[in-house]
């Protein structure tokens, strides 16, 4: 329905402005309906301006800036419609160390509502994990999982979670 969509759009937009600021340590961003008059059909435009830079089309953003902007939008949607679990496959591929740090901080805030399964090659992301599932192919072509747990300071989603490690 038009009203439901409109309300969702407003909520996601609010989240997006905050999320972007958190992930970029500043800057501004918002979502815009291409055709304000046609809420039922209008496409959605993304406006994003990293801190210190002038507003330009998102196409001119760097690889890492585009990933962070997409992550901001992704988490804005999660806030409106949380999922019990999320699987993120090498989201950090284009990110430098300080962006991975901010990304990981945001993921940890969401742990209260969802499980996060993160596929990664990055040391920093691995360092933020509570458990590692190491996938190996000792027999060539046959996958096997080995799990390594680090600490048990956190509780399952929905239960009271003591301060994360």
């Amino acid at each position, binding site marked *: 329905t038009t009203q439901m969509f409109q309300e969702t759009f407003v909520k996601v937009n609010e989240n997006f402005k905050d999320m972007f600021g958190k992930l970029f340590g500043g800057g501004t961003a918002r979502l815009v309906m291409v055709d304000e008059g046609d809420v039922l059909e209008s496409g959605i435009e993304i406006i994003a301006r990293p801190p210190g830079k002038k507003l330009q089309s998102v196409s001119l953003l760097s690889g890492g800036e585009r990933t962070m902007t997409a992550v901001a939008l992704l988490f804005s949607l999660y806030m409106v419609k949380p999922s*019990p*679990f999320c699987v993120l496959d090498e989201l950090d591929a284009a990110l430098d160390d300080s962006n991975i740090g901010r990304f990981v901080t945001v993921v940890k805030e969401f742990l209260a509502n969802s499980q996060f*399964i993160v596929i990664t090659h990055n040391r920093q992301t691995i360092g933020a994990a509570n458990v590692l599932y190491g996938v190996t192919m000792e027999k060539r072509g046959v996958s096997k999982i080995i799990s390594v747990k680090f600490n048990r300071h956190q509780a399952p989603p929905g239960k009271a979670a003591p301060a994360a490690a």
Partner: protein
Amino acid sequence: MYLKRLEMVGFKSFAERTKLEYEPGIMAIVGPNGCGKSNISDAIRWVLGEQSAKSLRGAGMTDFIFNGTDTHKPMGMAEVSLTLAECEASLGMEYHEVTVTRRVYRSGEGEYLINKTPCRLKDIQRLFMDTGVGTNSYSLMEQGRIDRILSSHPEDRREVFEEAS
């Protein structure tokens, strides 16, 4: 509701029975290129009813049955089971736990089961309606695809918002 366990056998490179069990905090999946990490993410999408083999990198569903190596014979079936726990609130069910299973055979025939009872894909989709669990959700972010929400057309991007409404 949380993801308690993922179990698979014969799915892509996971020839032998493999289990991934819930742990609190961030769960990181790690390992060298080609060892099977993204295949785990594919298994989750597949058991939740993904209908497009192409979106899981195959041409047809039988591509996902372990097809052998220098040292292992091909198998006749692929099976993945996903178990969710503490479902009462979200699924309004008498079950405390729900296990969703999907199989495919070399003939191309497939099966779906809920708690070991055969059912249709529709039943699984209906079960998870509005819980955020499913293949449409942005909570399953594939490798290399994070940029897509930025590069897609404003009209396509809208679908994501409609899904969240």
